[in-house]
């Protein structure tokens, strides 16, 4: 009988990525695939869904950005401190055999599962374009890791402090024009992912996006993450869905639901 109880164990290692984000490694065979997530639990503080940011040789990692009370408390943790997780949950990015080269587009904290995906793709002998956008150079997450992994790294910042000044979606457009790219993957702000799905469709390239919603159970039971109008649960039938499916969802890029289930428009939300 299925059981997804928390596993609580000491953190094997940590690595600071930016001023406000930290990667935590666990010596545990999670058997995850790029795009899947775990529920992280800091006993006594709370729980948070978080993408797996890498896994190999019996060690997996998550990269946490300190944004809310739970993630801030998690980011204070050091090697040897105990942290709990359950999962992996949800769908994953898929790279069919005939795909030879991929482009990933990450914004904000979205680069974590994409870095994992690129490493996975490169290990299978595929070419990977890693496109990342951030406020400034200090907020870029995995550029160095991706260079080391052998990806083609293309960066965009709002202030031009690193890479081009502009949007990662513009870099995607240029890449699709200049290179043969068979599939596009994205994770990050929904408005950006919507653009990625539209641009890919325009170039006739299939895409996959990671669409997140407020989650409670993570196991397809509580209905908190159901999206309009398909009524599918993104913790189970997502977070990774095809760009085509995403574009067919009424709420994609438009609204989401808070923990009570009330609808909140993206543009009315202060960020």
């Amino acid at each position, binding site marked *: 009988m299925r059981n997804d109880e*928390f596993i609580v164990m000491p953190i094997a290692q940590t690595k600071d990525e930016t001023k406000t984000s930290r990667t935590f490694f666990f010596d545990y065979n999670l058997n995850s695939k790029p795009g899947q997530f775990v529920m992280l639990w800091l006993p006594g503080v709370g729980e948070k869904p978080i993408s797996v940011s890498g896994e190999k040789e019996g060690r997996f990692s998550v990269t946490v950005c300190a944004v809310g009370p739970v993630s801030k408390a998690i980011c204070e943790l050091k090697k040897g401190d105990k942290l709990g997780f359950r999962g992996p949950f949800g769908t994953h990015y898929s790279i069919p055999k005939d795909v030879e080269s991929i482009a990933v587009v990450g914004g904000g904290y979205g680069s974590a599962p994409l870095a994992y995906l690129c490493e996975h793709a490169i290990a299978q002998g595929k070419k990977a374009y890693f496109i990342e956008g951030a406020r400034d150079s200090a907020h870029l997450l995995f550029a160095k890791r991706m260079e080391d992994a052998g990806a083609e790294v293309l960066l965009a910042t709002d202030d031009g402090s690193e890479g081009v000044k502009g949007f990662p979606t513009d870099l995607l457009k240029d890449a699709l024009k200049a290179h043969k790219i068979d599939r596009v993957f994205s994770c990050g702000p929904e408005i950006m992912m919507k653009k990625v799905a539209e641009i890919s469709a325009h170039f006739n390239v299939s895409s996959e996006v990671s669409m997140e919603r407020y989650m409670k159970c993570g*196991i397809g039971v*509580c209905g908190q993450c159901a999206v309009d109008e398909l009524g599918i*649960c993104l913790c189970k039938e997502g977070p990774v869905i095809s760009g085509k499916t995403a574009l067919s969802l009424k709420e994609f890029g438009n609204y989401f639901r808070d923990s*009570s*289930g*009330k609808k909140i428009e993206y543009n009315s939300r202060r960020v």
Partner: protein
Amino acid sequence: MLSVSLAGAKLQNPTVLASGVLGTTGASLIRVAKEGAGAVTTKSISLEARKGHPTPVITTFDAGMINAVGLSNPGIKDFLPELEAAVKGSPSPVIASIFASTIEEFGELAKEVSQAKPSLIELNISCPNVNDEFGRPFACDAVSSSEVVKAAKKGTAIPLFVKLSPNVANIGAIAQAVEKAGADGITAINTVGPGMQINIEAAMPVLTNKVGGVSGPAIKPVAVRCVYDIYKATKLPIIGTGGVTNARDAIEMVMAGATAVGIGSAVYYGGVEVFSEIPKGMREFMESEGYSKIEKMRGIAHEE
């Protein structure tokens, strides 16, 4: 062969999506109905919005799960359009579940929710998740249970099902009381407990709320016994709920006296596909055992 009727609502098969599992939005209810559910129940709705308890709110164990979702919902005003969409788009009857902290509020809510014309209204008087806020659930006491039914009856003409708690000494007596008060049916059971899970590495309870309602396979024997007791005590149709994960469990509920079978936690084990698989398995069992209609099995376990 499998169709049943619940206080006038016609179900193609006896499976009913239990309240609080999926069913949070119109689209989600329609989706489950399209997967084959004979009827679908909404998440329990209150007058005002509730955010629910802080996570973790669900944890699993070998034989089930414990939840302290805490009755989160957007409140009746925001939920009405969702319910209207469900009633319009769902191929099977929609049951609106409501809960309130006072008897008067139950009447008010029953009236409000009726605007969307659900086939049935379910009065959730038994959620163990909100004990501390509201005191003992109404379902623990025959008098307050019947008061709730009477208040709701005044607010609506739609048939009323009452959702009972297993955490009482004599569930048959409570069932009789709500029957006398005018209830049209009974849903049993809500979650058992509350229960607790302690993670031994963390050395603390897993749920932030510490305790939560137990559901899933572990509670099936309790649910079957409750349905058996209620069937013996009343003439009301019963939505037998608790730990049903496959066709055999569903048949067991029917044999205890259930007219329909509520399914919640099984979605975790078998996905929404359970709503097509369970009716299929029930049909196969009935064919091989020679039952021509579901009525032939209902309450059969009571025969001496």
